[in-house]
């Protein structure tokens, strides 16, 4: 028991000081502790003490009101840095750090990773089409129901593809977002809304728990 506790303290210490290429952790120690407690609660009983995709998806849905399955899977991928299909403590805390407190740059990177479905460093026409295909109400009388989506894709390219190579590189995406922050989540919601964000932060903040 004691070792476990020590282990946890060490982990918290490590996380709070973390500052590497993936960015730094934006949480205070007590918050990290809360997050890890939360994590432990979720993974209770599952093998390796790791969070699997389905549980994470439920969590995204319950906590942050996300509904789009594709995007939720992609968000999981973005969290899962070592690509082992599970989230460990580290990935959980660091992921939430960006999710909740990330700088614009971190969030831009995060969103780009989410939208880059095949992970090749570019968002291609096909990926855009895939992401946007449910964004318009289909009109049954239209000859080609996908036409609207295709036009949307063209609009996006016109707006964001600065080097005119018919796909979005990270540089394209980043410069567009810098110019117009509304386009951060250009291909679907993958970050929590301000209210949900605040609600979650309240949940892990010290004061809140003292009060209730």
């Amino acid at each position: 028991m004691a070792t476990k506790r020590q282990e946890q303290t060490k982990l918290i210490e490590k996380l709070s000081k973390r500052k590497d290429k993936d960015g730094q952790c934006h949480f205070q120690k007590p918050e990290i502790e809360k997050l890890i407690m939360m994590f432990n609660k979720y993974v209770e009983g599952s093998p390796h003490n790791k969070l699997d995709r389905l549980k994470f998806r439920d969590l995204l849905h319950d906590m942050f009101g996300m509904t789009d399955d594709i995007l939720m899977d992609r968000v999981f991928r973005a969290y899962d840095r070592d690509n082992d299909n599970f989230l460990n403590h580290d990935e959980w805390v660091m992921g939430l750090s960006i999710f909740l407190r990330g700088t614009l740059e971190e969030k831009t990177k995060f969103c780009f990773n989410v939208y880059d479905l095949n992970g090749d460093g570019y968002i291609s026409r096909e990926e855009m089409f895939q992401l946007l295909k449910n964004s318009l109400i289909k009109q049954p009388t239209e000859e080609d129901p996908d036409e609207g989506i295709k036009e949307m894709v063209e609009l996006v390219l016109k707006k964001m593809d600065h080097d005119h190579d018919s796909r979005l590189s990270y540089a394209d995406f980043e410069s567009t977002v810098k110019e117009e922050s509304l386009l951060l989540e250009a291909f679907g919601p993958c970050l929590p809304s301000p209210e949900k964000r605040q609600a979650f932060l309240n949940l892990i903040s010290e004061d809140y728990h003292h009060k209730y």
Partner: protein
Amino acid sequence: MGQALQRAAQWTSAKGGSGGKLEFTKLNEELLNTIIQWIEGFGAKYPEEAKLSFKSPLTWPSSLRADMLSGAGYTERGEEVVSEAQNDKGDHPLLVLKKSGAQEYMISIMNLEYAEAVLRMASEKKLSEVRSCLEANRDPVVNMLGERFATVEGDDNSIFRFIEEITKEIETLAKQSVNAENEGNTEKQAEIEMKKTQLKLRLQLLRLDQQLLNQSIISITKDVRLTPVSVDGEVSILKDLSGEDDDKCVLDSIEYFGDGYVFKNGCRAQPWRQLHGDICYLVVKPHDGDTMYITANTSGYYLNNGLDPMKAGDLKYTKVGDSYKDLVTLLKDKSPRFGELIDKQEFALKVRDRDHDHVIDHGGETRSYTEEDDFTHRTDTKRQEKKDKDQKEDKQKQNATKKKKLSPSLKWKALGMEEYNEDEKKDKEKRILRKKRTPTQLKSKTPMGAEDSFSESSTESEEEEESIERRSETNADLPSEYWQIQKLVKYLKGGNQTATIIALCSMRDFNLAQETCQLAIRDVGGLEVLINLLDTEEIKCKIGSLKILKEISRNTQIRRAIADLGGLQTMVKILRDLDKDLKCLAAETIANVAKFRRARRTVRQHGGIKKLVGLLDCPNVQGTLTPDMEKDVEVARCGALALWSCSKSKKNKEAMRKAGAIPLLAKLLKSTHENMLIPVVGTLQECASEPSYRLAIRTEGMIEDLVKNLNSSNQELQMHCASAIFKCAEEKETRDLVRQYGGLDPLVALLANNSNKELLAAATGAIWKCSISAENVKRFQELKAIDLLVALLNDQPEEVLVNVVGALGELAKDPPNRAQIRKAGGISPLVNLLTGTNQALLVNVTKAVGQCAEEQDNMAIIDKLDGVRLLWSLLKNHNPEVQASAAWAICPCIENAKDAGEMVRSFVGGLELIVSLLKSENKEVLASVCAAIANIAKDEENLAVITDHGVVPMLARLTNTTDDKLRRHLAEAIARCCNWGNNRVAFGREKAVAPLVRYLKSSDEMVHRSTARALFQLSKDPENCITMHEAGAVQPLMKMVGSVDEDLQEAAAGCIGNIRRLALANEKARYS
């Protein structure tokens, strides 16, 4: 009764193969009671039918016990108790009670008589008896009368067939009976009789069935079950009416409980709770009492146990207290304050909504009109095609909306709701409005109070005309942007939030400053969508939409359209949002839209002023700022921008003051950022037209900051500062403060700025007002302001000229400045300006010329330029102010001109004109004309002329005035006019003397002096002396003899002398 039981009665769903049960509901109970009543009375009314045996027995588990079947007619038969009576075939007893378990009995009966008997025996348990009977026999009619009468869906003509059968049998029987009589006939006869009874019973049952159905319909209609739509409707109405304001809002707040997710069926409760009929949960905070947690169940609204302390985000769902049919009734019951408020709510909000609807309709019409017009140049066939396409599109649109309702995506949550709430809202509105039905449309068209339009700067009619013209122009041919924008608007309408944001951002890539794009957005219905987006929950959509609205609202037509579509109301609401970017954008857009009166009024009426003033409150404006603080400053800046626009209406200024804008503006004025200072100073200068603001600006120490910013490098800011000083310097204290803070120097420095006319006008205005104080005049002398001002007399717009000339007029009150003006060459341009038409300018010019004419040398120039003739002709001006100031200016001219008498005579009809002005009703005109007449009368010939024109009776008529200024000049004129012919006697005859004596009681020394002079002149006529003596003139005159004023002394003494002399002469005559 079959139909009623199948359709109306409420059965539980079948469980465990045991068949359905009748639910314990009110409706079922009523049905059962009716059936019981029917059975109980049946035997007595229709004995034959009651005795009719059933085809098969009705059997059900009964609560009756064997021992209850006591008395005659029943026998025990082993496990069973049976009735002695048998059915008509004689093979089955009419009642059998059989033991089926330890305490369980099955009962079966064969006719209605026994049914009645069973009920009698069951006494208080008869209800459960009937219930279990019906549960066991879902279609009792089949048992009673056979399969042929089974309840079927659709047309049931079994009865008709039965009737036919009977009649046929009767017919055959009749035939047979004609042929021969045999025994079979009697049997047949009995059979027919039985069938007839059967038919009668069937008809009775049918009647019962109908009765039951009717009854259930009545109770079903009474029991309206809640649906998600109706709940949302009620909640959204109450939401609109709730807020912090204790007086106006019925509730503090009303919110949905939970994460706000709406299921496809419209419910918000979790699915497992939906199984219990829960639709959603509400958190209601009334003004009195604690927060209530309310469950909206399909059966009604009721309170639940509130938050579950064990599970966060969950409720204790147990029902507390009664359920209510609607939310309002529940709240009325729980919160007395709510009841009070809901009764007296004024529902201003509703009025707005109706207005809004109306406008939307209107917009729709005009749009379709223009759309068709667009195609006028095309051939008819194409037009037809287009129409067909339009229709198709319409259908698609309808489909789209239908679809929207079926599957509300997250984004359309708020919108969709609004859609289907509309009807309900309207209903409620109608109900409420019936009480106070003010035709809002009419109201908005009636002109505002005179005082409101006083301070308006934009003229509405002008703008409106312009918009009509433009519209016809743009129809000519459509640019490509039009079609692209149309497509984007299509995506806005039919996309989820992601598509919406992409469309919004793409739309911003168009040149929104260009009118074609602005109008294209309006014409394709984009404004409606943009404004609707503001009502959603999606903050990004709101931001994107506002960014566009902010740009396009620079166009006057778009402004109007936004206001017509109710956009201002929504934006005012957004001002309370937590997001600062959003607040900024909303305020900036309001600043653009509120450029015309109706919009400003709308902002005020929806509490926008208060919220905008609230935005001004930012903690820190100076020093280095964190990004967060910068945001606050930005919010304040946008708030000031919006207030600036709004402050053009008088009532808004008042509202701003009440909302505490002044100290906040004073604080912001300390800022060092130009883009903050401009709207702040702009607002201040707009408001400085109100005395209350002027006082506040002085007392809050804002003059110092205004002066400081005069030195800014930004001309716009300088202009607003100068303009604020211009308006504030009406008061002496302010003028002194401007001097003390060194504001006169920068003002004079601004005169060098010849290119910016607005700035020049403001600066010269400030100089004009400041030069009213003598100390300031000294400083201006030192700064050589006169030379600069005189230089501005040429080639300037009238706004500048008015102020320049005004300033020169004020400065010329100091004698050295008059010479300075002459030396600078200012006389000639001033005289030239006398030919102008601008009233304000003429008033100032005449004043200035009058001041200059005080000096002999100047007068010579004026005379040479024929300035007096020009002044004289201004007496014909319609504006009394101009008349008065011209007459005042004429006085020094006559005084100082050489050969003035000749000059005056040379003006043809001039003397007649000036005498006729004595008929004026304006006191200032009268006083000035009297002063002029006093001067004219110095010349004897002229005096003779004006006497001929009847000046004496006209002056005499004015003597009853109480105005000291008029008294003074009137007495002066009378004194001068006495010097001709028998004018003295004439004044006495016109009863001018006694009123003049009363002037001696005035507190004004100047009045005394001129009055004493007039009395002295008049006392040369003995009759007048008597009148004076009678009026008690001697005593005050005696006092005036002791005055320090020599003129007065002399005149008073002379007057007394004359009176005394008359008395002496009188005595002498008597004694000699």
